[in-house]
């Protein structure tokens, strides 16, 4: 039977209530953020990638699970078999078999090869999405990544949450 999308906000509320915790304060933005419309055609875009699935490369320090607000630069020519995933809130079975499910690097490299987009930025930015403090993300982590994307002069940025 077809079911509607899982309401994760409601299920988190139920889970916290069952465990005796107060409700989690989810980020709520009443209005969507303004749209910046790309000026160039798609085949000329430089594409940036940001992913919050706890992705790191062998040789980098892995993320921890307690409000880790650090981020990693991952060169866009990193071999896929060196990409790792670590996270406490999703089943890592598939992401460890094929990181593209949370970090579509091979997918994007294919779209550069076939000319759909112009190029990838020199690196992607990844972090640990399970950060309890929305304030730390809003005030510290997100502005740091935006600064990097602006410096990289990307035309569009793809965010892949988990």
């Amino acid at each position: 039977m077809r079911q509607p999308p899982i309401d994760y906000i409601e299920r988190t509320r139920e889970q916290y209530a069952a465990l005796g915790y107060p409700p989690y304060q989810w980020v709520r933005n009443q209005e969507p953020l303004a749209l910046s419309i790309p000026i160039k055609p798609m085949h000329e875009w430089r594409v940036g990638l940001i992913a919050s699935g706890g992705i790191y490369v062998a040789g980098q320090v892995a993320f921890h699970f307690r409000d880790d607000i650090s981020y990693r630069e991952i060169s866009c020519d990193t071999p896929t078999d060196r990409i790792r995933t670590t996270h406490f809130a999703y089943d890592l079975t598939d992401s460890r078999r094929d990181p593209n499910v949370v970090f579509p690097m091979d997918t994007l490299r294919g779209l550069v090869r076939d000319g759909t987009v112009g190029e990838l930025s020199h690196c992607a930015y990844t972090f640990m999405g399970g950060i309890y403090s929305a304030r730390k993300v809003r005030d510290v982590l997100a502005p740091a990544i935006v600064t990097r994307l602006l410096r990289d002069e990307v035309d569009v940025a793809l965010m892949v949450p988990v």
Partner: protein
Amino acid sequence: MSLSSAWSISRSVNPPRMVYLDFPLGHTAGRAHDVQSQKAVVMAALRLLEEARDPGSATTLSQRWSNDDAWKDAVMRPRIKADRDGEFDDDRMERFATPQYQESEDADLVTGDCSTCVWLEE
């Protein structure tokens, strides 16, 4: 432009554009080892970047995880502990404060300062 497999959370955050895929968490960009599935997700995102003219535009992909949606029933449903009356089992993973490596050998590969790891002041 944000992908999403959690409609309610993404709607609450309200990104300028989103592409929704109704898969279990951990597959936001498609099915493992399925190039067509993965490409369809990213292409939908690129098309929305190209075409959207209204803030909050969303595309819902038609890909289904399985023929029925029974996988949704057990997600984040608190279970009552079998051995104690009325207490719920907290099956969430512990929030370890040390790096959690996928492979234990990864820890040995880290040498000196990780120049591509960026530590931010809170």
